[in-house]
């Protein structure tokens, strides 16, 4: 049966590339904006800087820490043996193509209507959908699927709790004190160290084996400390220029303090882009990698085949293209709408969300960056840090799940049978 692969292999590969690029474009156009909008809204960085940061760190995140999630999506959700892909590998190709197309189309519809759906949920729904209906219920590794679904609840809660405590520490160490400005200058470098250290540590311990690098724990610790110190020194350099200006504090006494936290937010913006890249790029390139793997091996499915660099390049390129063509508009809109999130709060939310997402990436669990960030913002709100939060969004997010999973599955099933009819 692998004649189909040898006959249409190139076409499949081209289709997968096009669909994968389309999906990555969608991620870049919409999803990245949430990760970067926080920093833009807090006026810590300009939109141009946000796009530049996103380009570099999304790519770095995908490359250094994205392997685990990509592998989950390409081969962790479907049980290759039980699904019988050894005999008919073309089914996997159809399925992955339909999943990409289904998720891409659904995201297009949803973002056009402003529904809060997640890329991750769409692609997981699509993959599970084609596997259950097109192949069999046994083909799905349900334990994996349930752990992913559970993580969608756990990850926002986790980042919410982390954000709460980070922001409480800011209150205790800086905002509540007699001299907030001096204390801000004293503690912000330490927070910058934390950002660099945590992101580097999680990546080193969990992610790097896909790049072919292996470090022992103590080596990782050393490198992470070095990264943290480097970030901290860079931060100290940037902080030198910030002085307390009496005039700007007249109307609002904390203006100078927030400027100090603005520097911190440049770093958390980088970590956020890195985290997003490590988790969400996989949604686009995971299925593509699966198709490429089947086609290259001429129909034999090998689970352990590494992730070719060009696939990553395509995913990263798609994100950058989406960001450059459309994403900057969305960033601008979000940035305008969330000015309530001042740097001292925004950084707490971003650091909590980035940490949670990077840990999820290292564990190979695809989570929604946006929802994690929403959880983090709620955490800051619980510490009485935000003027007003609209809780209806939370129920809208839950509703969007309930809709996204079956709809993503439905569209994917239709395409699956369509491809089957065309090629087999």
């Amino acid at each position, binding site marked *: 049966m692998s004649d189909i692969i040898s006959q249409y292999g190139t076409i499949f590969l081209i289709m997968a590339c096009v669909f994968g690029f389309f999906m990555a474009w969608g991620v870049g156009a*919409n999803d990245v904006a949430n990760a970067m909008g926080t920093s833009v809204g807090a006026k810590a960085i300009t939109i141009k800087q946000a796009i530049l940061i996103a380009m570099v760190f999304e790519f770095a995140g995908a490359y250094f820490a994205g392997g685990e999630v990509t592998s989950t999506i390409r081969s962790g959700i479907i049980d290759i043996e039980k699904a019988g892909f050894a005999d008919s590998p073309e089914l996997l190709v159809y399925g992955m193509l339909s999943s990409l197309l289904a998720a891409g189309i659904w995201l297009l519809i949803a973002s056009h209507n402003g529904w809060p759906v997640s890329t991750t949920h769409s692609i997981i729904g699509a993959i599970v959908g084609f596997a259950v209906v097109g192949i069999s219920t046994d083909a799905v590794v349900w334990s994996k699927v349930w752990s992913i679904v559970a993580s969608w609840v756990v990850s926002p809660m986790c980042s919410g709790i982390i954000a709460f405590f980070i922001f409480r520490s800011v209150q205790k160490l800086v*905002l509540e004190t007699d001299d907030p400005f001096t204390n801000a200058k004293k503690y912000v470098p330490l927070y910058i160290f934390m950002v660099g250290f945590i992101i580097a540590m999680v990546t080193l311990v969990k992610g790097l084996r896909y790049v072919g690098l292996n470090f022992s724990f103590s080596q990782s610790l050393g490198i992470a400390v070095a990264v943290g110190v480097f970030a901290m020194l860079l931060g100290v350099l940037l902080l030198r220029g910030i002085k307390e200006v009496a005039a700007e504090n007249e109307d609002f*006494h904390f203006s100078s303090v927030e400027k100090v936290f603005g520097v911190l937010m440049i770093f958390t913006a980088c970590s956020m882009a890195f985290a997003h890249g490590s988790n969400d790029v996989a949604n686009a390139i995971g299925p593509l990698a699966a198709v490429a793997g089947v086609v290259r091996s001429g129909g034999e499915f090998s689970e352990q085949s590494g992730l070719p660099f060009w696939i990553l390049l395509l995913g990263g390129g798609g994100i950058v293209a989406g960001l450059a063509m459309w994403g900057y508009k969305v960033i601008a809109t*979000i940035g305008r709408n969330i000015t309530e999130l001042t740097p001292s709060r925004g950084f707490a939310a971003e650091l909590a969300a980035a940490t949670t997402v990077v840990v999820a990436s290292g564990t190979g669990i695809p989570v929604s960056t946006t929802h994690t960030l*929403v959880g983090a913002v709620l955490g800051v709100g619980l*510490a009485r840090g935000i003027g007003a939060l609209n809780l209806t969004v939370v129920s*809208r997010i839950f509703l969007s799940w309930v809709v996204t999973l079956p709809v993503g599955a439905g569209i994917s099933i239709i395409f699956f049978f369509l491809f089957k009819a065309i090629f087999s």
Partner: protein
Amino acid sequence: MSSSLSALFGRSPIRPIQEHMAIAHHCVELLGKFLEASFLKDWDAAFALQQEIRNQENLADDLKSNVRTGLPKSLFLPVPRTDLLELLSTQDKLANRAKDVAGLMLGRRMEIPESLVAEVREYYNESFLASKQALKVINELDELLETGFRGKEVELVEGLINELDELEHQTDVSQVKLRAKLFALEQSLPPVDVMFLYKIIDQIGDLADISESVGARLLLLIAR
């Protein structure tokens, strides 16, 4: 999906509440000019000022309803929603009371007896200072939000509120004196005028009372 993060942020009621207080205090300030005009029996100028007070009071009303409609129950706030709404309606009373005094005095072309003018001016000034202090307190709301209604900032605001209570107490003392002086004059004045003079004295004192309750309401927000 892009909307879920930005939709999370409701409009903070803090700024509008501060703007509302600024307008309410402006009404009190205008009342001072109105009183001066009435002392000079310049009723044209008094009429113009009364109109201005009325306009400002309408503005405050609009702002109040805007804040109210912008505070649905689904909004998650750092302080209880009911306390914020109470604070707002207390502030609104300040503008209302200023309008009442101007309206009543203009309607009756009330003239303050020469011998009382200095005391009334002083008495109004004390109420004005209380209102000004209340505005100062409310202007600390954004700083309170910044610190999460905790720490040093709370102490600072509590200090301001104590000063406000002090100012209000001062008007109570002056009110007693003013009434006593009016009582001594009572026989020489038309009885109906005297009745309304007592009322005006009461209402000018209300300005300070209401200012004090603005402070008390704010104290409720931070007391936890």
